[in-house]
């Protein structure tokens, strides 16, 4: 028994060492740093001053507001569109694997590269999006360069980039539903909508819970797409700043790692809380 336990620790050691150094240590380090001020090589204890600064900083509140809005809008819409597209591909389209590959492509392509393409699509004067909108006689906003549009642009881009992963996972889940479930429903004359709401959706709940968690966490960590869309900025006049953008800015540009780490800790707690809440909610839905 004893020797067995020693061996077990030995086998676990690589993972434990790896996780300790690359996951646990950085978290603790960030937590400690959030109570320190000064430059990275010359840190000194400063108590709660970083947090005090943070909560008084309007830019931090803008970042949190933007991030929350981004998550609350892009995640549900993105998921709804993903379900719709996955369902259409799954039930109506032949050559599914071709479309699946096509939809998955954005996921394996660098967000930076896609962001640059979208800069052109979103361009106010000669962008593809506005060209289409003008053809349809709809208002053509200045997507990139208007501060009031920054968040909308990021949300549209965020929804688009979230589709790839969601659709592929949902296709897998749809494929796992016993086809006889639909045969039975057909036999009793269930309509397409009845089949979708009574069979497909309930069967997708576990997958949707997983995707919702992943998407929310991803949304709260949004950074790359902002960076790519606004050419390294957070939109005109920082109008599109997000939590991670704020952290990066305070760490690298302003040079106040303590404030950056305090913001990190706050973001960490927010994500933790929301994930916890969501798990409780999903469990309740699953029980009904």
């Amino acid at each position, binding site marked *: 028994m004893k020797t067995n336990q020693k061996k077990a620790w030995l086998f676990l050691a690589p993972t434990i060492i790896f996780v300790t150094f690359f996951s646990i240590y950085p978290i603790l380090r960030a937590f400690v740093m959030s109570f320190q001020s000064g430059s990275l090589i010359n840190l000194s204890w400063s108590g709660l001053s970083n947090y005090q600064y943070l909560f008084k900083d309007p830019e931090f509140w803008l970042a949190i507001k933007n991030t929350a809005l981004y998550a609350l809008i892009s995640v549900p819409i993105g998921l709804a569109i993903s379900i719709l597209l996955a369902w259409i591909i799954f039930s109506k389209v032949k050559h599914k694997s071709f479309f699946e590959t096509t939809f998955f492509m954005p996921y394996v392509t660098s967000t930076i590269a896609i962001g640059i393409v979208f800069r052109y699509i979103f361009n106010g004067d000669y962008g593809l999006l506005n060209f289409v909108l003008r053809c349809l006689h709809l208002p053509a906003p200045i997507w990139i360069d208007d501060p009031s549009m920054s968040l909308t642009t990021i949300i549209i881009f965020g929804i688009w980039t979230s589709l790839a992963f969601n659709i592929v996972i949902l296709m897998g889940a749809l494929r796992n539903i*016993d086809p*006889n*479930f639909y045969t039975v429903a057909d*036999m*009793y004359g*269930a309509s397409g909508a009845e089949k979708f709401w009574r069979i497909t959706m309930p069967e997708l709940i576990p997958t949707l819970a997983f995707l919702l968690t992943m998407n929310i966490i991803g949304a709260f960590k949004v950074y790359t797409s902002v960076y790519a869309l606004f050419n390294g900025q957070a939109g005109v006049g920082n109008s599109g700043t997000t939590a991670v953008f704020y952290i990066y800015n305070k760490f690298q540009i302003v040079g106040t790692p303590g404030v950056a780490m305090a913001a990190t800790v706050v973001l960490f707690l927010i994500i933790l809380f929301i994930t916890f809440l969501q798990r409780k909610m999903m469990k309740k839905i699953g029980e009904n």
Partner: protein
Amino acid sequence: MGNDKFVEVKNLKKVYNNGHEAIKDVSFSVKKGDLVCLLGPSGCGKTTILNILAGLLSPTSGDILFDGKSVVKTAPKDRHIGYVFQNYSLYPHMSVLQNVMFPLVVGKNKKPKAEAKKIAEKYMKLAQISDLADQRPHNLSGGQQQRVAIARALVGEPKILLMDEPLSNLDARLRLKIREEIRSLVKEVGITTLFVTHDQEEALSIGDKIILFNDGVIQQDDLGQNFYLKPNNYFVANFVGNPVINNFKVKKDDGKIKAKDFEINVDDLDQDRFKREIPDGDYILSVRPENILPDENGGLPVHVDDIELIGRERILKFEHDGKQARSLVDLEAPIKVGDDIKLKMRLDRIFLFTPDGERVY
């Protein structure tokens, strides 16, 4: 219309897109209220027929009549059928009650919830699952799931119940119990039932009538006992019966039927059982193990290689003409492995087949 042909299948043919001919010119009919078993080995086309009856597949040619009306062009939902799938296909996210109610609360003719619940409860009571109403299918045993599936199939008050190997997921003991329950349940409801199975014992015990398929063709459409006593052909004789029938290669020559180590005078056979005059030549003589027994005056000397105990009887195994053959004897018969004994056949119970399977005696 006549109750004798409540379900009528006429010259049914099904060729799949890949060219596989699953059903070749099949015709049969089912009496109202009967429980008929479609029996056959895997891939014989029995499930294809069931799916065509249900409307899940359309036939390549031929006609199907329910109560005298052709339903080939009728959608599955308008055929008034209940279908029990092999794996039951209960909805895992619904309770037993919701599962049973499902057929009543979807589609064009859906009923109000309260009414649907009432009907569902009636059939759940019949299937003895009332106390499981709030359970989820994954909490149920195989037998309970089976009953839920049957209740769901019956709740729409169909005219015809189709069951596709409904017992194959159950363990042996439960299978015996459930098959009796199924029989008494469908008889109580009085519904015409077609029951697909590959298990001959199941078919014999449950069916009012059995239709045996092989290679997309009906081999025999008959009462259960006739598969034993009057098999249509070599395939039927070999498919039905456990332990399997013994087949001996024989030659008819000079008024005698000759095999290795034994011969029979054609005059000793029951002349009424001959289907036709048979010329001299090669034949197959088949005899069931229970009809070839140890007898001091027997004409077939054999050496007992092995003895297998099957409950109240024993199977003596011996070799004849390079093939293993069997004799079914009483548990207490004083015979041991290694004994040399003589066997005698009941001549009125043997069958003669031509090499291509036609039965001539």
